[in-house]
């Protein structure tokens, strides 16, 4: 763990000072995407890694965060930061509504159910005129300011905001690991019957894990909406995004604190750089590479790449 902590602190320092030296917009964009996905993946790790409930529908929380912000801003002129809070509340709501019946299901059934819920959300939003249906919502270009959560002359403010969110997610994750909550989550994952016999309310704790996961994902949705200024169902509620979160955590190290961060640093550059440098001829190469990584890790090193850096207590 010491080695891991050192690596982590080094990473944070580099990330913090990076924009002071390198201002290339594309590199900044890449790092922003890495940090955003890392944050969401940490969210997934809470429900999938710590608690062992594989969800393939987390993109729905991302979408809710994005849409809540956008609609409140466009229709009611409500500040995006408040919109973020609204998005979190809606996401927790969804987590509870979905979790209540679905958590009674076992393993594979649950995973497929989360796919179903995610897809249903996507279908509803694609056909619902109030949220712009398939066309989506264009966020108004407002004067750039922190209060407005919009910046145009430079990406750097966005960079620091998402860095803060990432640190927040890591802090939450760390707090869970060290607390009784984390102990309960792991008990549910490793030995649910044992946990039940200890008197742990499994349903309640699964719901808590899912809600935390929802919030961490939802804030990223809000961030995305304010960053890109255009959202629509296929960019915010897509099944592939949910799958990407799982893959990131799987590659990086499932159930480990920094696993999702490492995974994001491997996965996102792979995806973005192959698109930019290989263009349309290279389409699919990134998928081939990370799918082979996932398969190899799943078969031979299920603890993920982080276990190569630090053995940890698993």
């Amino acid at each position: 763990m010491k080695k891991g902590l050192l690596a982590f602190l080094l990473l944070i320092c580099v990330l913090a000072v990076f924009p002071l030296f390198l201002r290339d917009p594309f590199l900044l964009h890449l790092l922003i995407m890495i940090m955003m996905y890392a944050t969401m993946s940490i969210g997934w790790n809470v429900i999938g890694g710590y608690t062992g409930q594989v969800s393939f529908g987390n993109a729905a929380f991302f979408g809710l965060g994005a849409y809540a912000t956008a609609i409140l801003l466009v229709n009611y002129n409500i500040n995006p930061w408040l919109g973020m809070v609204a998005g979190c509340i809606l996401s927790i709501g969804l987590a509870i509504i979905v979790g209540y019946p679905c958590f009674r299901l076992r393993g594979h059934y649950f995973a497929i159910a989360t796919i179903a819920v995610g897809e249903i959300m996507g279908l509803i939003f694609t056909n619902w005129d109030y949220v712009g249906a398939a066309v989506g919502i264009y966020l108004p270009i407002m004067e750039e300011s922190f209060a407005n959560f919009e910046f145009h002359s430079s990406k750097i403010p966005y960079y620091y905001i998402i860095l803060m969110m990432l640190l927040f997610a890591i802090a939450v994750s760390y707090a869970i690991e060290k607390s009784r909550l984390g102990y309960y989550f792991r008990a549910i994952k490793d030995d649910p019957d044992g946990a039940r016999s200890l008197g742990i309310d499994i349903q309640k704790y699964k719901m808590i894990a899912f809600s935390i996961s929802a919030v961490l994902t939802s804030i990223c949705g809000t961030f995305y909406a304010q960053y890109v200024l255009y959202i629509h169902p296929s960019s915010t509620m897509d099944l592939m995004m949910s799958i990407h979160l799982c893959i990131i955590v799987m590659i990086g190290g499932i159930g480990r604190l920094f696993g999702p961060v490492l995974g994001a640093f491997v996965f996102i550059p792979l995806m973005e750089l192959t698109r930019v440098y290989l263009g349309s001829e290279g389409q699919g190469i990134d998928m081939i590479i990370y799918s082979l990584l996932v398969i190899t890790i799943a078969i031979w090193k299920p603890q993920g790449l982080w276990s190569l850096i630090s053995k940890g207590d698993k």
Partner: protein
Amino acid sequence: MEGVFSQTLVSGILIGFVYALIAVGLTMIFGMMDIVNFAHGEYLMVAMYFAYWFFVLFGMDPLYSLPWVTALLFLLGVITYYILIRPIINAPMLSQIFVTFGILILLRGLAQYFWTVDYRMIPQTLTSGNVSIFGIYIGVAQLVAAGGAIFCNGLIFWFLKATRVGMALEAVAEDKESARLMGINSDRMFALAWGIGIATVGVAGTLMSSFYYVFPEVGSNFCLIAFVVVALGGFGSVAGAFIAGIIVGVVEVLSGYLIAPSLKFMFVLLLYLAVVFIRPQGLMGRK
């Protein structure tokens, strides 16, 4: 509009047979080794591409390339088992989910890279055109696909119930340990199940290539539909998958017709959720 209603119903039943065929492979594999093949839809996509390439490169109509594609897919299934599935037969569920998921992405990535994302369609097949039965117009391709699916399903059912090898497969699915005591090599049975399971998708894919567009993501919808069919029919039940397939096909087209075509898929997914909450073992499943 009575004519249109019955026409819609018929097309739902016809596609339902094909759904049943796709689901049969999935349910066999799950029934035997408790593994959900998340990549099932991608094998369908591969089969459709093979049928397309057989047409473009060798001028073979899908009806003629059917045995070839099926054989290739059987081989693919067996290879998948030996290389990727056997190592994780006893691994935790998380690993199993991720391996088949990894296969999903791998196949899709390979398709995107080698065959590009552009849409492909076989322009003219032997089964083009339509026939009129009792005033209902049905595409010949859809009719042939349904017929092929029924035949194939029947073949598998007969194989499992009436042949020694088939009964051995069922025995392993029922109780691995007892089967081993009776001298049945479960490893070989698993490989056979994978082979047959993927081969059925080969048949379905070839038949469907006459009337569907082919592109790398075409597998995802069918995969979800297959899950619904398997859940509804009961994980592990071949007969259940057959009946469920028809039900799902009908639900899909009727909800599209009566409510809204863009939401028809949603009702199929809601059906899955309903089944899994109310009757988790499905119509004819075990456990």
